[in-house]
């Protein structure tokens, strides 16, 4: 009896030890995913169905793309609070340009769509260019720079539209990029997939991609190793903004209007997705595939809460709490790592 008791005690120690090691290696995300899936499938029968999961995938596309940009900023040891503004500005500028072009030449639908997308993405990217110049050339802290630009961009978007949604884009734009599907998979998912693949290749398989990790890992060491830290920082914010702008255009297609009021929750949600996915706030650590999972997780939680009829105000509370939980978990993990190290 006594030996049995001690054996079972030993096995629980083993289990907790194994969980601990798993936690150290993988971080908090897998645990949260498992818990979320279990909780929501208990709360709603509709949760764990193919159709709903495809829904989650489609709804998460926008956050995923923005989070990938946010990850670049976090990798280099900064962050970008202006991603929400960039989404809004690209939406407004893109819609205005597209509607104007469409009105001027109603027969050239595709030209109008291309002009609109290019204009929207360029406008959003310009915010990133300014961010990049401020951070890399003038050493303004990313916090102040992107906070300031968030206000500037939002102001411009409101000024351009007077706060009214922009209508008049060609029908096809929304039909294809908003609601279209190929082989049963929504078009925005393809766009996200291409971006994920390119960014994965870029960060893991090119020297320039490695520079982002180097600058965040130790900016002085990067400089002494011949890496242009200024250029790397500049491109960080440009890439981040370009990705947010692409998300902005996709969202515009989905809404069929250009809106200045979208994207307000993007800074928080994208940072949360990255942090939950194990991207270090100190820079230098983070993986593309995990960030995609992190964004999907947030989409999953929002979807699950909708199905479980949790009020949208309360959902914001849950999201904020999750972000803090993730940061706490990261700290605990660091403590475990430190205790293993000695």
């Amino acid at each position, binding site marked *: 009896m006594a030996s049995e008791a001690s054996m079972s005690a030993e096995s629980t120690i083993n289990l907790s030890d194994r969980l601990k090691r798993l936690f150290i290696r993988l971080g908090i995300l897998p645990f949260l995913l498992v818990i979320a899936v279990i909780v929501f499938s208990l709360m709603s029968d509709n949760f764990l169905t193919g159709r709903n999961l495809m829904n989650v995938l489609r709804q998460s596309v926008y956050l995923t793309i923005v989070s990938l940009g946010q990850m670049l900023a976090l990798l280099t040891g900064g962050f970008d609070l202006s991603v929400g503004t960039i989404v809004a500005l690209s939406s407004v500028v893109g819609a205005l340009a597209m509607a104007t072009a469409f009105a001027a030449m109603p027969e050239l639908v595709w030209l109008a769509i291309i002009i609109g997308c290019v204009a929207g993405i360029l406008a959003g990217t310009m915010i990133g260019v300014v961010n990049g110049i401020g951070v890399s050339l003038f050493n303004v802290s990313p916090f102040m720079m992107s906070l300031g630009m968030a206000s500037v961009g939002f102001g411009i978007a409101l000024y351009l539209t007077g706060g009214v949604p922009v209508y008049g884009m060609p029908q096809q734009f929304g039909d294809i990029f908003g609601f279209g599907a190929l082989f049963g998979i929504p078009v925005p998912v393809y766009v996200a997939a291409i971006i994920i693949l390119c960014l994965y290749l870029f960060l893991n398989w090119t*020297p320039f991609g490695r520079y982002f990790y180097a600058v965040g890992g130790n900016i002085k*060491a990067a400089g002494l190793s011949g890496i242009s830290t200024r250029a790397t920082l500049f491109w960080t914010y440009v890439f981040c903004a370009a990705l947010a702008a692409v998300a902005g255009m996709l969202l515009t297609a989905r809404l069929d209007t250009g809106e200045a009021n979208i994207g307000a929750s993007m800074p928080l949600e994208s940072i949360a997705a990255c942090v939950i996915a194990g991207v270090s706030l100190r820079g230098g650590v983070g993986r593309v595939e995990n960030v995609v999972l992190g964004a999907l997780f947030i989409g999953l939680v929002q979807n699950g809460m909708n199905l479980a009829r949790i009020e949208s105000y309360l959902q914001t509370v849950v999201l904020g709490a999750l972000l803090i939980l993730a940061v706490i978990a990261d700290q605990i993990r660091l403590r475990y790592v430190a205790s293993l190290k000695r």
Partner: protein
Amino acid sequence: MSSQDREGARRADAHLLLEAINVTKQFPGVKALDGVNFELRHGEVHILFGENGAGKSTLISMIAGAARPTTGEFRFNGSPVHLDSVHEARALGISAVFQEFSLIPQMSVEENLFLGAEETRSGILQKKALHRRATEILEDLDFHLPVNLPVSRLTRAEQQMVEIAKAFRSEPSILILDEPTASLTQHETEQLFRLIARLKAKGVGIIYITHRMSEIREIGDRITILRDGHYIDTVDAKTTSEDELVRLMTGRVVGQVFPKIEFNPQQTLLVVSDLATADNGVRGASVTVRRGEIVGLAGLVGSGKSRFAQACFGARDIVSGTITFKDADVTGLSTRRMLDRGFLYLPSDRKNDGLMMMRPVRENMSLASLTRKPVSNGLFLSAGGEARMAAELAERLHLAPMRVERTVEHFSGGNQQKAMLARSLTREFDLIAFDEPTVGVDVGTRAAIYRFIAELCENGAAILLISSDLPEILHLSNRAYVFYRGQIQAELEGAEITEENVLKHFFEREAA
């Protein structure tokens, strides 16, 4: 042990200030200390000696109350004590000065001195009293520091002095010093040693960690050697030979620390004339370096020798002077251009300037060669090529443990240094500047690093060796320049490089 000896040992116990009995520290998966015994007498300087990772830091952090032993006990003045927190240890008068400073850069010297022990009256800070006491403490220690200046504006050596002064807020009984002279100038070191002598006379016990043999001789009474978490021996500091100590520390005969180098100077690679930097740290320095020789840059900490090399490498702004490398004018080029031309500078502060601590060794090794074969074809990285190169370099430098995918922060200091130095082998460099290549590195690794530098030189590379450690300059360099306050005081060659000659120029006043 005979019964008489045991009797003698017990009687000696009464005079022991601190005793660690059979102390073990278990971390998950690894025993950092395994049944270690240690004793400290009143008025003794007891040196802790061992390789990086031998367990010295673990032992002193337990004595200072920053970590708890898994088993074993500590006795203070003969009675068992629990050193569960830094606070409890401090209450017994035990204070430690670690290598990593615990100073708040934005706060002034006096605010730092009394941090956590501020004097208050009904909740209000007694700033005048604190200022008076801070001045008294610093005067008593003969440290000339401006008490109102923020710590961030002090030099590293001055910060070290503040850190030491913190231990004197209250009357210390035990003072722990972890490589305190690593960043001190000669003068400051002497000052510290005088202070230690005064404390000894008062009966304070001092635990002192150092890798420097001359310091052991000068101030040590006894030496306790640790290896791989085990207690090896306690020996007399004055009579034990260096070879014997190295044998005890490494468990093997290392042979000569400094290798014999065949110098074969060929064509001139680097010609620097009249260089001055924007920060005024270097003022009119001229140096030439040839292939196949090691040129030493000697001088005190802050004499401008590091800044000189950084300026040559393009990492510092230059206001005047010219730099010629391989017969081409390269003045003011970026570090990237200098690397492309075959010049590499490896910084002295591996943690702050050299390594990405949270990234694997492999990535740290390849950092300066990411656009070159075999790491990449210019456009895409080659995972296989990079991994093979990292594995080869790890083998060549005897990285321990030999795991290139492990993050650098989990390696000991010596092995971190190897990961950084490996950068010099990731492609053919013509000129490599090593800035303090053996700072905080144990003797075994040091010998390996010297052999490595010698090999590079014999294979035809030119080496700039920047060092504040005099023996390094004396034994390794073919020619040496001595820096003093940003200027070159002397150029010495071959047999002229003697301790006396170099030291003479360390302190010499500027002519007019």
